[in-house]
């Protein structure tokens, strides 16, 4: 029996370890990331497996030249989570990301599994804006332009194109229709007049694609531009009438997970209206996942915007003020801005957390009530007993933020931000320690010499009260702290104290739980300053950050505090923007207020070189990173040496991507990385991770494309090896005059982590603006005897 227990324990341990080490997930099916181009927004779309109880998905993101991740709440919609990252964050040559998936039980899982202990974040290559983008110019129609069909003409200029380009081989597509045969090639200009070929152009939204080839017949570049074709009457009407676009989507799906079957039903409505410069948008998302005992899953949003200077949003808004204070957190209420240029104001008010009542676990009388942190006094008249052990609930939390600023921001802007957040102690019966927070901040940006010099600064201080249930400190309590002559043993004057309390209590509850307790040590200050210089093909950035250990803002849940240090980086463009060399160095340390046992220093050196050739040769990125962490505890300190940190992580990465034609066009991506973790502490937990992957996407014809991918992963930790091999096969096929679109992906894995999975979707256009999408996902893990699936149907109606 003892032996059986031991084997079982070893098996469980092994399986648990396997789960941690695998760079795969039981929560995330796949992550789609739009093409990452420097300065352009990047959209993350996460497909989730049928796992119940997911309450939040957070994107952790870090540019290559920084070491601290920034965190963004993703929008949960059905079985997917989406977030569009601002182009300001997207820099060459790479970015790292991972996902943090939070469950209602409080459990947090990462994707890939096991970050940061046993796995590393994923890396995505960021392409520099291609010089080719400026070589091929769509002169007309302009992007987003509305044109009358009688006056419509397409004009593409190749005047700036490289001499390698074969202009005569250029292909023009309007949607999926090849209109090259109707185009007129006039020197370096391509012209198409709709008037001459009325059958070639229909009314509606159009997407123009210009495929450019070099003189060897190989793809050189592709440019896309969207516009709308209307009748002359429609165009005239469009300028004076409401234009309504939108979609209605209804979904019903069944998820089966570990023999637990659940139905989910969602309905979403998106409406966009424009009238001249006025934009009215509305979004409603209603789901059966909305429950009173969890944070809201339904979403409602209305938006009114006039030109670029006036905006008001209602419902679930995601306001962004200076990042240290309010960074895209969901606020259910009102947000808006008025931008007059010389003076602007942004404001938001609403609920960031709704109240969820706690639950009674066990009731006690006065005699048998144990002393425990979750045993509280309850209303005996209502519940029968005076005490109970409870699961604490969540207080309703309201937030208000205001940011007046001066200057349009093109050259200069100086802003001031005030944020106040407060829990409502009366919102629930069973709660613990309602809190209150005030943050004051200022930020400035300055752009000089046509933005070649950019200065950004922000600084904020916070006040936090960790328990406002007892309200403000009373005059009697103050009296008790002071002797009869008004002095106290801690050297304060009573009248001065009362005056300060009266002033402060108009902003925040003042009692013994207010902090910081050591403001003179700047413990609640968070500040950063960044200077960027763009000269001589160099982009040099230097920044300094300081984040005190007690800094906290209710509008920013994810900031890493207790850090200070510098970051210096340089990106050099060479050989006519074909080669990019990046080097960055960051040095940080914690324990700013001497609240930790020892101070840990973090040094990061990142270097990379990227080659984006304009010839038939693979694009290459090579990168080397070295991260060291070291604190001042010596191995000989027998009392504290278990807290010793002294390690080096070295990462070598190579990525290659290559487009070639072998019968048809293929796009290949290959990457290999080696991560070595050398632990010099007494734990001596050296680890090595090696990952290699190859993906080939093939475009067989306009209807069929396929992908084949391989990933090999192996790790060594001490004397334990772990490895698996992941195969990914996918195909997409359009048929029935494009009415039916089929997608199939099969993802088995072999080795120490075994899993079979496939994902099938079929989209059928029932009418021009009504489509049905059937989705079937299935995966099983034979070793864990687990089989899970999801089957759903979605109807989408476009207005």
């Amino acid at each position, binding site marked *: 029996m003892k032996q059986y227990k031991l084997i079982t324990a070893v098996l469980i341990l092994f399986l648990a370890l396997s789960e941690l080490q695998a760079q795969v997930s039981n929560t995330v099916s796949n992550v789609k990331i739009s093409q990452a181009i420097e300065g352009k927004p990047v959209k993350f779309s996460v497909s989730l497996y049928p796992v119940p109880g997911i309450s939040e998905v957070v994107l952790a993101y870090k540019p290559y030249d920084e070491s601290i991740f920034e965190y963004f709440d993703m929008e949960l919609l059905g079985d997917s989570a989406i977030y569009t990252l601002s182009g300001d964050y997207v820099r060459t040559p790479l970015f790292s990301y991972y996902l943090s998936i939070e469950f209602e039980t409080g459990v947090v899982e990462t994707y890939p599994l096991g970050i940061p202990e046993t796995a590393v974040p994923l890396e995505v290559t960021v392409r520099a804006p291609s010089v080719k983008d400026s070589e091929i110019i769509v002169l007309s129609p302009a992007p987003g332009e509305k044109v009358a069909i009688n006056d419509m003409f397409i004009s593409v200029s190749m*005047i*700036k194109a*490289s001499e390698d380009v074969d202009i005569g081989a250029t292909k023009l597509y309007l949607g999926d229709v090849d209109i090259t045969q109707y185009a007129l090639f006039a020197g370096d200009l391509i012209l198409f007049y709709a008037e001459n070929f009325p059958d070639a152009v229909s009314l509606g939204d159009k997407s123009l694609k210009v495929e450019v080839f070099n003189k060897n017949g190989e793809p050189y570049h592709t440019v896309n531009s969207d516009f709308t074709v209307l009748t002359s009457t429609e165009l005239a009407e469009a300028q004076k009438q409401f234009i309504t676009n939108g979609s209605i989507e209804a979904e019903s799906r069944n998820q089966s997970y570990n023999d637990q079957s659940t139905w989910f039903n969602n309905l979403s409505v998106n409406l966009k209206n424009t009238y001249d410069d006025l934009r009215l948008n509305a979004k409603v998302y209603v789901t059966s996942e909305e429950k009173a005992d969890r944070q809201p899953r339904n979403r409602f949003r209305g938006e009114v915007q006039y030109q670029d200077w006036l905006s008001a949003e209602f419902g679930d808004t995601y306001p962004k003020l200076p990042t240290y204070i309010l960074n895209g957190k969901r606020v259910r209420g009102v947000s808006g801005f008025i931008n007059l240029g010389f003076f602007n104001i942004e404001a938001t008010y609403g609920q960031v957390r709704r109240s969820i009542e706690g639950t009674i676990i066990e009731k006690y009388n006065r005699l048998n009530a144990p002393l425990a942190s979750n045993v509280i006094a309850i209303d005996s008249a209502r519940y029968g007993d005076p005490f109970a052990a409870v699961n604490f609930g969540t207080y309703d939390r309201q937030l208000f933020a205001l940011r007046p600023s001066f200057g349009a921001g093109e050259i200069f802007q100086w802003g001031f931000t005030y944020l106040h957040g407060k829990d409502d102690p009366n919102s629930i019966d069973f709660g613990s320690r309602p809190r209150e927070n005030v943050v004051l901040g200022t930020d400035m940006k300055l752009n000089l010499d046509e933005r070649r010099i950019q200065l950004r600064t922000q600084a904020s201080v916070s006040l936090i009260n960790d328990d406002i249930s007892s309200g403000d400190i009373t005059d009697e309590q103050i009296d008790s702290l002071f002797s009869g002559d008004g002095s106290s043993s801690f050297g304060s004057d009573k009248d001065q104290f009362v005056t300060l309390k009266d002033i402060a209590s108009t902003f925040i509850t003042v009692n013994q739980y207010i902090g910081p307790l050591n403001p003179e040590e700047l413990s609640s200050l968070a500040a950063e300053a960044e200077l960027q210089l763009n000269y001589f093909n160099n982009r040099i950035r230097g920044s300094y950050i300081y984040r005190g250990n007690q800094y906290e803002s209710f509008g920013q849940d994810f900031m890493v505090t207790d850090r200070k240090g510098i970051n210096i980086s340089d990106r050099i463009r060479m050989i006519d923007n074909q080669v990019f060399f990046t080097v960055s160095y960051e040095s940080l340390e914690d324990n700013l207020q001497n609240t930790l046992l020892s101070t840990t220093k973090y040094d990061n050196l990142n270097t990379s070189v990227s080659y984006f050739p304009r010839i038939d040769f693979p694009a290459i990125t090579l990168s080397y990173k070295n991260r060291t962490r070291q604190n001042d505890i010596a191995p000989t300190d027998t009392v504290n040496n278990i807290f010793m940190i002294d390690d080096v992580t070295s990462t070598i990465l190579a990525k290659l991507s290559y487009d070639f034609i072998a019968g048809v066009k293929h796009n290949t991506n290959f990457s290999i990385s080696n991560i070595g973790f050398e632990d010099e502490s007494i734990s001596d937990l050296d680890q090595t991770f090696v990952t290699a992957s190859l993906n080939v996407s093939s475009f067989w014809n306009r209807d069929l494309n396929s992908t084949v991918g391989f990933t090999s992963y192996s790790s060594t930790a001490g004397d334990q090896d772990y490895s698996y091999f992941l195969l990914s096969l996918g195909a997409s096929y359009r048929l029935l005059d494009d009415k039916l679109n089929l997608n199939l992906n099969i993802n088995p894995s072999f080795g120490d982590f075994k899993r079979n999975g496939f994902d099938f979707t079929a989209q059928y256009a029932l009418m021009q603006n009504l489509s049905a999408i059937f989705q079937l996902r299935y995966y099983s893990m034979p070793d864990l005897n687990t089989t899970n699936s999801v089957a759903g149907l979605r109807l989408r109606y476009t207005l």
Partner: protein
Amino acid sequence: MKIIKQVFFFTLFIGIALAFTAGNFHDDQTPVALVKKIVKDVQYKSADETDWEAAKMGEPLMDGGEVKTGFQSLALVLFTDGSGLLRVRENSILNIYGEKSKRAMNKNTFIQEGVVGFEVNKQSEDEEFKFTTPTMVASIRGTEGVIDGDQNKVLCESGLIELAALIGQKETGVLTGGNAAQVTEDGQLKIYEMTDAEKQQLQQTKQITIKKIRVETEDGTLEVEYYEEEE
């Protein structure tokens, strides 16, 4: 007679050679500009033609092409290297010249008469963007403004314009955003801060859409046309 023949053949030879050379210069038949938008009466003619033709949307304008706008008319002209656009106001006549070398194009717009608004992107070091009137030359590096050929005046909304008078004292100067310049009869260049009227003219030049208001009266329908400001 022999001499006449020799002169004739020599002239013919030179003529053919020149034509051949000129043909080589015009081998690149890339239009310099396009007519992007037309309001009412806009005509054009190529350099080697004498008759005006009604322009249509997308009309390509070759080197030396001429554009003419009539009463209450307007043409929006787009340069094919993506360098900018012209708003040719009513009763204007201009010639557009472009010389392409490798991946650059030097542009010169000769304003015979009338008013032209312009939006010009930043030019690369090896490119020129010039406006010429009978009295001055304006070199543009990336700016917005108006050239008023009738009043020998330049309004600069933003950016920088290098100016040179072509008559009299042939003064030169640099015009910056918010200022105006006028060439006097004796070739002096007067630079001054834009007046309110000139600022209004600058804005009016941007209006490219004509809208109509119909007013029903006892005597019939009165139509009022006005320009709508560009978005």
